[in-house]
């Protein structure tokens, strides 16, 4: 009764959760394009898209992807054999346990009328499948906690998934072990199935079961009498053999039984197997009920992501469907860390403490953003910086085992975040190159604003740049001068004698009829400002951000001033200053 009620309860939560999650696929959004599509439009576009795909040649692609990527998981194999073995063990083992063992009433007994959980091959297979899952868990634990893969992050959901699987499996194996040894269970079976009721015969049967079946009896112990064993075998063959194979084939349970046999009688009296049964069932129900809200939801979302990505692309798919796909992709992520391990700029996380640099962690932040969770300004700026610190090398997309188009996702999220209006300083770096190549897909104002905003935020810290500002004859800012020390070359500004060779050869200066108006302060003036310690002039000019780093100035300086390197360093300082102000 308790089992039935709790099962239906778990199923109900699971069902509602599933519906809720599916509804979020059409309601939540990441990018700017998604803003323009309503939930109804997205649902309609999805149905239309699916229908068109199913009745086109693409059905063959879907079929191939389902076999190769969903069932055989070749994308994981391409990454790493050990990880593929881990996941195949977990997923094949668990699926088969679910079908053969958990749903035995509905599936196994229907397919095999002679099915009994206690006869072979079922008894053996149950342990074999269990063994696969346990092997998978062991590899996962090894990978996450012993191998120490650089920058691979393990979060709450990973702990949860490993814990719930471990509890289900271990409680199952222990339950089997205690049932094998259990004397009370043995007695129940005798009452239920034995035809003969003769005292002597029962004693013989018990002896036989203690010797051959691992039952731990309070009275019957080794050494055994050969004659008694022989008649026990006969009784066994008459009453038991049809429905009960030898437990040795349930190798996990039998090993457990052998290990616990010294304390088996105590365990039996304490009804440990009943407790284990409850743990086993309740853990399963919990896993079921919580599944839509946990990372195990990837069971549904990952195949969808793989299938959708195999037939969709940015050019031909409707923006509504891309928006929906991106939310499914957020659910499809298993936090396996492939993207992070292969990320081209992941190494930056070692010196810039922002978790959002790592793709696998960005997904977590985007999930919060998409579901409308409130993020503080500080958090939003962190996500924005993490997403901008990306060379768009597409490695994450190529390696994702569940086929998430991370490249597209970063692009959508980047623009949506920039639109919120917080200055992002990495826009003033070659990380913007890709964004520039994609500018034709962006709205003109939306494209320019973040660039202007970052420059303005930096210049706002440099009051001398304002034309109406009176410059006080204050003493030189010595601290600023001595701060220019990241690289020994930066301090060379002190030998500048103002010949202006740098400014003369600068291609940026040469590009304008009125360079001072456009660029603010010119290269030789910046060197001079550094010498005087006038940090505002050195840090606030447009010249810094328009510098091409072509090194013409440095190459031509008769005094050996490392002008380009000084400019590099000033950029670092200016951003640091503006960032400090913002936080």
């Amino acid at each position: 009764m308790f089992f039935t009620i709790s099962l239906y309860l778990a199923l109900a939560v699971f069902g509602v959760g599933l519906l809720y999650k599916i509804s979020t696929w059409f309601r939540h959004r990441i990018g700017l394009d998604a803003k323009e599509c309503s939930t109804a439009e997205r649902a309609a576009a999805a149905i239309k898209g699916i229908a068109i795909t199913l009745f086109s040649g693409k059905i063959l692609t879907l079929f191939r992807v389902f076999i190769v990527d969903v069932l055989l998981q070749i994308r994981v194999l391409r990454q790493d054999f050990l990880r593929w073995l881990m996941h195949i063990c977990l997923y094949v083992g668990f699926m088969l346990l679910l079908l053969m063992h958990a749903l035995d009433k509905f599936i196994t007994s229907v397919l095999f009328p002679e099915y009994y959980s206690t006869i072979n091959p079922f008894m053996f297979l149950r342990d074999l499948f269990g063994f696969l899952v346990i092997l998978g868990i062991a590899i996962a634990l090894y990978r996450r906690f012993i191998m120490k893969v650089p920058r691979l992050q393990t979060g709450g959901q990973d702990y949860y998934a490993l814990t719930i699987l471990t509890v289900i499996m271990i409680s199952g194996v222990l339950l089997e072990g205690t049932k094998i040894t259990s004397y009370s269970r043995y007695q129940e079976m005798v009452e239920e199935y034995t035809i003969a009721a003769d005292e002597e015969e029962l004693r013989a049967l018990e002896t036989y079961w203690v010797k051959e079946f691992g039952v731990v009896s309070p009275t019957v112990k080794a050494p055994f009498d050969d004659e008694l064993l022989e008649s026990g075998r006969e009784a066994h063959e008459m009453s038991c053999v049809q429905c009960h194979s030898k437990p040795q084939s349930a190798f996990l349970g039998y090993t457990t039984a052998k290990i616990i046999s010294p304390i088996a009688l105590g365990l039996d009296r304490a009804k440990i197997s009943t407790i284990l049964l409850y743990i086993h069932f309740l853990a399963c129900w919990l896993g079921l009920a919580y599944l839509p809200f946990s990372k195990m939801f990837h069971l549904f979302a990952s195949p969808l992501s793989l299938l959708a990505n195999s037939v969709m692309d940015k050019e031909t798919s409707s923006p509504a469907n891309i928006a929906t796909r991106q939310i499914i992709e957020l659910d499809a992520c298993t936090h396996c860390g492939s993207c992070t391990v292969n990320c081209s700029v992941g190494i930056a996380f070692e010196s810039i403490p922002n978790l959002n640099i790592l793709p696998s962690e960005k997904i977590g932040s985007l999930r919060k953003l998409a579901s409308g969770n409130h993020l503080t300004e500080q958090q939003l700026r962190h996500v924005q910086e993490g997403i901008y610190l990306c060379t768009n090398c597409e490695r994450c997309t190529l390696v994702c085992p569940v086929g998430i188009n991370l490249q597209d996702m970063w692009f959508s999220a980047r623009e949506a975040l920039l639109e919120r209006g917080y200055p992002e300083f990495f826009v003033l770096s070659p990380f913007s190159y890709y964004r520039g190549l994609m500018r034709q897909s962006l709205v003109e104002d939306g494209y320019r604003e973040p660039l202007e905003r970052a420059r303005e935020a930096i210049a706002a810290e440099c009051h001398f740049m304002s034309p109406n500002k009176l410059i006080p004859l204050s003493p030189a800012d010595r601290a600023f001068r001595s701060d220019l020390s990241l690289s020994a070359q930066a301090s060379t500004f002190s030998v500048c004698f103002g010949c202006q060779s740098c400014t003369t050869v600068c291609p940026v200066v040469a590009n304008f009829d009125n360079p001072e108006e456009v660029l603010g302060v010119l290269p030789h003036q910046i060197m001079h400002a550094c010498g005087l310690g006038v940090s505002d002039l050195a840090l606030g000019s447009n010249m810094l951000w328009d510098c091409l780093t072509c090194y013409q100035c440095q190459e031509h300086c008769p005094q050996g001033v490392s002008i380009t390197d000084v400019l590099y360093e000033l950029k670092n300082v200016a951003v640091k200053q503006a960032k400090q102000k913002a936080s």
Partner: protein
Amino acid sequence: MKFGLFLGCNIPARLSQYETSTRAILARLGVVLADIKQFNCCGYPIRNLDYKTFVLAAARNLALAEKNNVNLLSLCKCCYGSLKKADHLLKEDTLLRQEINNILKKEYLEYRGDVEVKHLLSLLYHDVGLGGIKEKIEKPFSGLNIATHYGCHALRPSQIVAFDDPVAPTIFDQLVEVTGAESISWSAKLDCCGAPAWGINDDLSMDLTEKKLKDGRQSGAEYLCAACTYCQIQFDTVQEIILSSRGNNLNLPSVLYPQLLGLSMGMDGKTLGLSMNQLSIDGIEDFFFVPESEEVEG
């Protein structure tokens, strides 16, 4: 010593023909390459904002090459300049090196400074040699005017990158001429391609690119020739944007050096990924040298 091929971030995503054509010509010339999957960003884009992270990123690549006992072969000049610069800084500054190595230690890596960073052009010129290349030329060009674009980060700062004479370089011109093409003299040869400003100040970037294209055309070039990822994307993809947004008629397509060399070695356009260039360079195949006797027969 073997060379670890350092592709950087842009080639695999946006310029794969540079990789395939390079592999094709190097295989023909007998240069053995090692592929190290774990290479990361060279550090170049991070340098504007975070000096230490730039050095760290570059150092990890150098350390990976050391671990695999290979030298680094860069195809991109910005990667090249960045790796060279970081290598120099790490050699000069022991404190910085210690700090970086402390981070790399977590991955069982260490920067020791035993790796040489080379650009494709230096490898071809110094290690393979013009003679070695000449032997493999099967279909030399004739009457093809090429404007070589050296690329800033290969030439300067010359003390650190030590690629060629920073004021009057010749390596690239000689490498172009070995294919039978003519390397023209043009005044904007050593100027910036404009790529560093792209995405940050597009107008400035387009101005600079346009100046080069104009000078190249006026000096009689049929094609630009680049051997750098950023320069090539600038001359190809960005030039296309310039042509459409500024509406002028300055079309001067750019061919990647390994594509040019590969064609003269008799490789087909497909192997060299000619069709993957945004601005068509198919016309270049009209410039193969045709011996007069054949012409009469034809």
